[in-house]
């Protein structure tokens, strides 16, 4: 059997930092990745990338849902070339009517680099407050819409604080390659490693004006896209005028490798070292253990044949739902594994995403939104203690604008009236009056004019929001599918309403030079969506939280499973609370932190 110092399952934000650190230290590292090893132009022998600037790569052709027993059987679905096929690998959620539906929500991309290939690249730090929400909320009597005291019962401090993670935020920012500005962020920086941001898209001026009028300190949204040659990864900027700005950023892999996914930033620079091996197109089916030591990692090779490998340390980081599912599937194979992993009874519980939503409007004038990254301005106005207390909130969130939404014609039409993959194209095809002259007017109104401001905020952790194994639905390997049961707490709804109103205010003040009367077409939280229970924003968090008390967590403060000697979980699953920002940078920073702990052991 192949044996390695460490076997890492997943090559995205939770796995790649560990592979990078340990491979650099000379340890033997195997990375198992379920998806393909897709290359940039520079890495391809022909000089052609497997990623394209092609709108049909963002959402492919229509497919028909056939998963037995699903209420949405027969409905259309769409996915990118590196997202799983729902018929083969469904995630099942319980809708408002109590019926099961298959969804693509809650999947990050399955490809080398994981979710960081398709993400919007927003790379914010969490605020110090995010790490101590239990302490912050202790004894408060001013929380709105929390009639049964869930905040005080369920909020948890992280077992590490901001200061412990701060050096690793810096390390991640430096090694990943992120542009942005630190001034005005509500997060202390011991050093700034950002590259210089590109000029904002002209439409973002409305956000600048709006935030200034409202006294919201703003900064350039940190984005994981390099804007200058990046020596840690050896990537160089090609000739051209701001070549990273294309409109093909969010939801697209980058053929030039300027978007800083974990493959181009952390893994590819070390490829070729004899002690680092990538096995792509390999899906791990379960782990076996003996006396609390994971002794075998079993996977299917690219042809589907079973293979077992061994690691002194085993790191699970295949995005929270799939990581939790892998632990549960392993527990089904072995009572002893089950007894250990379920000891606290919390595996799968406290599944989290973010409270998210925002505001959107057509702004005065027209702009070329295709010359854009994804976001230009951000503010921590809603992450500070004053704002949180003044609004009776348990926690805060970040706000930032999106410029690349609907920047290209097909994305404009397919997201007409919808923002997610489950309902994409729906409104456009049903709006049958949109033809000929009416279609011209649709373009006149919406093409190059629309601007959105989003928020990303903490969701209250609840044991009832959870991941299970579905009793009946199987994936293409005959393994039980993930079953996602979640809903929004009344306080989440209050929080979303509060932050959505702030987003709307930015546009209302931004649209008319600070007078505050510009009409905003729509704003709200994601709980309002038809499929609100499914919506995850690809921020899959929790389900195996880490903590200092073995009875109250699945993982110890180093992300090691409590009853195991060598099993670690380092993706978003470890998060006890979801943070006030997009999670990727924090997952990366924490993985760098855990990597240092692992080095001490090896």
């Amino acid at each position, binding site marked *: 059997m192949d044996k390695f110092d460490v076997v890492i399952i997943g090559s995205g934000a939770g796995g790649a930092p560990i592979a990078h650190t340990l491979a650099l230290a000379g340890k033997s590292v195997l990375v198992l990745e379920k998806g393909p*090893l897709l290359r940039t132009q520079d890495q391809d022998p022909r000089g052609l990338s497997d990623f394209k600037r092609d709108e049909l790569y963002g959402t492919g052709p229509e*497919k028909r849902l056939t998963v037995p027993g699903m209420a949405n059987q027969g409905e259309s679905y769409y996915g990118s070339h590196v997202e799983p096929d729902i018929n083969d690998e469904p995630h099942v959620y319980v809708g408002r009517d109590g019926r099961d539906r298959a969804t693509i929500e809650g999947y990050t991309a399955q490809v080398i680099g994981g979710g960081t290939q398709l993400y919007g690249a927003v790379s914010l730090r969490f605020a110090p407050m995010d790490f101590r929400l239990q302490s912050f909320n202790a004894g408060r009597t001013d929380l709105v819409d929390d009639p049964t005291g869930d905040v005080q019962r369920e909020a948890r401090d992280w077992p590490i604080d901001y200061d412990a993670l701060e050096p690793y935020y810096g390390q991640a920012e430096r090694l990943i390659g992120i542009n942005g500005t630190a001034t005005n962020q509500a997060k202390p920086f011991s050093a700034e490693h950002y590259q210089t941001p590109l000029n904002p898209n002209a439409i973002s001026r409305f956000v600048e004006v709006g935030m200034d009028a409202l006294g919201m300190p703003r900064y350039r949204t940190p984005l994981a896209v390099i804007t200058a040659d990046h020596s840690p990864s050896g990537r160089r900027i090609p000739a051209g*005028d701001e070549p990273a700005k294309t409109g093909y950023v969010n939801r697209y892999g980058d053929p030039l490798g300027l978007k800083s996914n974990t493959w181009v930033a952390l893994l590819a620079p070390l490829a070729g070292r004899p002690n680092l091996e990538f096995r792509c197109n390999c899906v791990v089916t379960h782990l076996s253990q003996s006396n609390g030591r994971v002794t075998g990692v079993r996977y299917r090779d690219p042809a589907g044949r079973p293979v077992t490998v061994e690691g002194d340390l085993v790191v699970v980081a295949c995005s929270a739902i799939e990581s939790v599912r892998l632990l549960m599937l392993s527990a089904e194979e072995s009572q002893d594994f089950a007894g250990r992993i379920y000891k606290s009874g919390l595996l799968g519980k406290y599944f989290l995403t973010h409270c998210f939503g925002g505001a959107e409007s057509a702004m005065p004038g027209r702009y070329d939104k295709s010359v854009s990254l994804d976001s230009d301005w951000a503010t921590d106005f809603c992450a500070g203690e004053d704002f949180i207390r003044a609004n009776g909130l348990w926690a805060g969130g970040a706000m930032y604008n999106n410029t690349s939404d609907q920047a290209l014609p097909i994305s404009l039409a397919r997201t007409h009236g919808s923002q997610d993959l489950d309902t994409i194209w729906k409104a456009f095809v049903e709006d049958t009056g949109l033809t000929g002259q009416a279609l011209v007017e649709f373009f006149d109104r919406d093409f190059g004019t629309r601007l959105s401001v989003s928020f990303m905020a903490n969701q209250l952790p609840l044991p009832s929001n959870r991941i299970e194994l579905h009793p009946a639905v199987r994936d293409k390997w005959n393994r039980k599918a993930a079953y996602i049961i979640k809903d929004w707490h009344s306080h989440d709804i209050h929080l979303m309403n509060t932050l959505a109103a702030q987003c709307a205010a930015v546009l209302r003040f931004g649209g008319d030079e600070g007078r505050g009367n510009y009409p905003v077409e729509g704003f709200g939280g994601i709980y309002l969506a038809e499929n609100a229970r499914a919506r995850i924003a690809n921020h899959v968090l929790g389900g195996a939280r880490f903590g200092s008390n073995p009875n109250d967590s699945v993982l110890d403060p180093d992300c090691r499973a409590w009853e195991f000697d060598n099993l670690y979980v380092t993706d978003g699953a470890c998060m006890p609370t979801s943070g006030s920002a997009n999670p990727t940078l924090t997952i990366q920073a924490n993985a760098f932190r855990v990597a240092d702990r692992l080095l001490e052991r090896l």
Partner: protein
Amino acid sequence: MAVRLIAKDDQYVLNHCTKYLARENPEPRHVYGPDAGIEVARIAEAWRFPIIDGHRDPDEQAASQAFNEVTFVYLAAPGALPTEVAVIGSFANLYEPLAMRQVGDTPYFTLTAVVPRGEAHSYRFLVGGEALLDPINPQRMTLDNGRVWSRFFTQDCTIPLVLEHWERRLLERLCDHILPFRTPTAENFLARFYDYLDRQARDAQYPNAYRFDASVGVVNYIDKLLAREESHHQADYRICLDLINQVVRQRNPFLDPARMARDLYVTLYEEMGRNDVPGWDYGRYGTPRYFLQLLRRHTFTGAFAHPKYGGNAGTAAWAWLAERYRDGDGETLFDWGRALEPPYGRNPAYRG
């Protein structure tokens, strides 16, 4: 001339196989056309095979853009590894058998050929002396001798594959109505744009562009979509175009449907939108509105997608947006060519 073959590495082939082909659950979960068969229903996105990809020869960059790389994959049955697998087809010299190599020790056999864009070809696999249809790719074509072979087509293909001549003409009328290009300003734009693309430019940049017409090649895009990615919708088009043909002929028995007045199609379109079409055979197809919705998505996508998919002829739809939306200085507010590869766009780094 012998076909050019390319050695692709194992990683490339496996990258395009595992997600779609490797599995254990035998449930037929994937929907293709009615004739695709149950084995194909156990494959995700069977239409991806053979793999059609861009080609680039670093020594002949410009010339190589006229070609695709076509990677054939044969998946041997478990426990029955054949000693030799080959592919024969119209893309190669006189149907010469081309030996496929085994990918590592896997049951995948593969071969990559360089084939010009804009073509459609027949092929079979030679396994154990038998000439087999491709068990993965559901595309078929009937040769002149009546034999059925597997088929693939390359990017920018304008050869009609699925729709009959009368179906295409009828479809064009419907697509015209959905798209913005029948409005006076857009018609004016298209006339100028197509005129501006003089013959030389057309031949050099868009040799395969379907037709420079008001539906910007969308009908060709739909034909290709029905041949491959969305072959499960072939039946919808077959039945509904037949029914539409009947309905419009009832309404005007004296004219060829493709020549009937625009108003007639506008009325029909609105009736389909209401799911209430007098004369429609609801027994054969219950929801004309569903077909209209399908057509809306296909038409819009075809018009505004990358031209390699067969629509957006000569990038006309992008150019229309680029001209319509300009700032006070006349600079475009949709500079799509900035990001895209030559010859469509002008990005110096991105190669498509």
